[in-house]
């Protein structure tokens, strides 16, 4: 893990911030797409060392946050069924539905388990033939291939008791939705490094051209983020709008073609509702007809689900980058990680959770030292 320290070197970080200051002549608003990037920015305080002309806008790239509340309700209903073992990633356990979360279902006796890999859920299905095992699979292009592999593996093993509640979403259509909005204030993007590790860079080129917006595919460590911002600011200052790759140690132009092939085999692109953003055309993945038998929404009666989001949660505006978490009247008061009104407060990639955990208020922490 020595490499991590090199990407967190304090002197290099400040040198890079200085060189951004030198090339920056006017205000720029840059959106980091991915919630992992948001957490890094807030955790290390990267926004605090940038020139004041640069505003970082936190994007919608948190898979937990954008999962619609109807999907959460479906998972809650499945988790409460006596013959069902519901498996999901730990992050999903605390996401509020209309009035409870999966941890609540678990405390009331539901068999809800968190797994580290979707293949673990397939293993649980093989070990429990008398039970229905449902994997609640959410995520962007990053997690979708592993979830696809789980379904394919279950099919190969002819497991009739495994299914997936699928809520997968795609990054490029969400970027287009944001850019098409009349409220859009985004001058440039830091692309999501992990998503592009799978998908490559080429699908972003039409977006950069159409909306005249620079997109720099960027990693997650402090030096990655500062270098990504530097490349983005340079393009903006020079009037360019290209797709550039800061995260070349992980991302290639074509991406992981094997993973892409698996995605095409198991999933098809469909319209999808995003929590906070509403319905977006061609922005989600669902299992193809060949794998429909593994689709939990086909296997279980879930059509009548009605769900309500808190009317006080402004996660829609937060996920579009229109407001910061600290702009929300409920932030840190009625809405905390223990009593969340919305998903961004509980997800490890949610902007509200980052602000609550590391910052609490609009102004960063200051240290008063007793020496």
């Amino acid at each position, binding site marked *: *893990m020595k490499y991590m320290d090199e990407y967190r070197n304090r002197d290099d970080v400040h040198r890079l911030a200085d060189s951004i200051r030198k090339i920056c002549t006017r205000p720029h608003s840059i959106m980091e797409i991915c919630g992992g990037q948001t957490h890094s920015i*807030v955790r290390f305080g990267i926004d605090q060392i940038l020139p004041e002309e640069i505003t970082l806008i936190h994007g919608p790239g948190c898979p937990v946050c954008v999962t619609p509340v109807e999907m959460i309700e479906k998972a809650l209903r499945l988790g409460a069924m006596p013959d069902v073992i519901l498996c999901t990633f730990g992050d999903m356990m605390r996401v509020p539905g209309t009035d409870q979360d999966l*941890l609540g279902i678990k405390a009331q006796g539901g068999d809800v388990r968190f797994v580290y890999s979707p293949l673990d859920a397939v293993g649980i299905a093989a070990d429990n033939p008398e039970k229905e095992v449902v994997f609640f699979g959410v995520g962007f292009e990053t997690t979708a291939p592993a979830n696809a592999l789980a379904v394919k593996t279950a099919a190969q093993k002819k497991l009739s008791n495994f299914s997936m509640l699928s809520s997968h979403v795609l990054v490029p259509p969400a970027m287009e939705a944001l850019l098409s909005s009349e409220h859009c204030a985004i001058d440039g993007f830091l692309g999501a490094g992990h998503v592009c590790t799978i998908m490559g860079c080429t699908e972003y080129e039409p977006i950069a051209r159409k909306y005249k917006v620079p997109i720099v595919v960027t990693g997650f460590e402090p030096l990655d983020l500062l270098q990504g911002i530097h490349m983005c600011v340079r393009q903006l200052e020079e009037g360019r709008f290209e797709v550039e790759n800061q995260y070349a140690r992980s991302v290639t132009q074509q991406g992981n073609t094997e993973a892409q092939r698996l995605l095409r085999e198991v999933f098809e692109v469909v319209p999808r509702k995003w929590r906070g953003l509403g319905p977006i055309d061609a922005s989600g993945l669902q299992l193809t007809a060949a794998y429909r038998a593994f689709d939990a929404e086909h296997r279980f009666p879930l059509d009548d689900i009605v769900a309500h989001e808190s009317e*006080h949660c402004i996660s829609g505006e937060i996920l579009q980058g229109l407001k910061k978490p600290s702009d929300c009247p409920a932030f840190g*008061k009625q809405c905390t990680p223990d009593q969340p009104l919305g998903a961004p407060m509980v997800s*490890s990639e949610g902007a509200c959770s980052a602000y609550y*955990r590391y910052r609490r208020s609009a102004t960063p*922490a200051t240290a008063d030292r*007793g020496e």
Partner: protein
Amino acid sequence: MSIDADGGLACPVPLSNTSHVAMAHGGGGTRMRDLIDQVFMSRFRNDLGDGQNDSAILHFGGERLAFTTDSFVVDPPFFPGGNIGSLAVHGTINDLAMSGAKPLYLSAGFILEEGFEISKLERVVDSMKAAADEVGVKIVTGDTKVVERRNGEGIYINTAGIGVIQHDKTMEARAIRPGDHVIVNGDLGRHGMAIMTTREGFELETPIESDSAALWPAVQALLEADIDVHCFRDLTRGGLASALNELSESSGYGIHITESRIPVNSTVRGVCEILGFDPLHVANEGRMVAFVAPRDAERAVEILQGVNPDISAADIGVVGSTKEKRVTLESVIGVPRILDMLSGEQLPRIC
């Protein structure tokens, strides 16, 4: 529900997950603190204090005795670096040591599941004996109960302990002073990650070994050298972050630490990065923080390094001068941020 003029909610938001005990109520974070305050302390509070310290201090025949109890339910019961038996002895010894008490006597209560292998039980008990012998503690009374079989793997241990305070100092949160240095006796997060990686079957090139150990030798060494220690706290569930937040709250002073000075083993850091855990929230069972007067800080680190040269004792921060109850951490790139208490259980992230 409506929003009032101040933008606040006009009626309380319904509490979720509070009708039943959830795992987070035992996680060492805010939920557990709320449960203790609202269910236990509201009923048990008495003239011997609020029961929130590691041990109760009892005055008896001119002596000051420390008395404590702890229960152990660790899954899996055997892990690299120890087992539930050594843990049950270390845990209670450490609660006594944190009051500055020399641990003397322990009780041991066993709740065993029908089907638990006797040979495994013998291994557990051997470890308890060895852990107690190491610091000269005697296990003097006990109890055994057997419960019906579930998976035949269950073993739970309760230990209680008595120690004697042989000095006239009062070591507690309220004794913490502005300018005190914050010193940890070793690298953080090993116990929690040893348990997690064993339970989940992670295959690591070098397995993470639990830090489970008795803290009395470290405390004794500092006391014998007459180091001006104002407070000790063992870093168990909720890790360093929870301990410092509790101490900031009870002492009334802000605490400021520096991320780059906090020792964390590289494998622990790596696994935490992958899973989205913060090592400062991860449990330890042989680590403590000591609040030491500035003039003695350097010597305290040297003494702790002498007690165990392998675990990197370090001076990681200071107590602030204002009555501001919060913990800040200067990030590795030099920007201060809040270090929050863990809320609920740490859950692994999606990606």
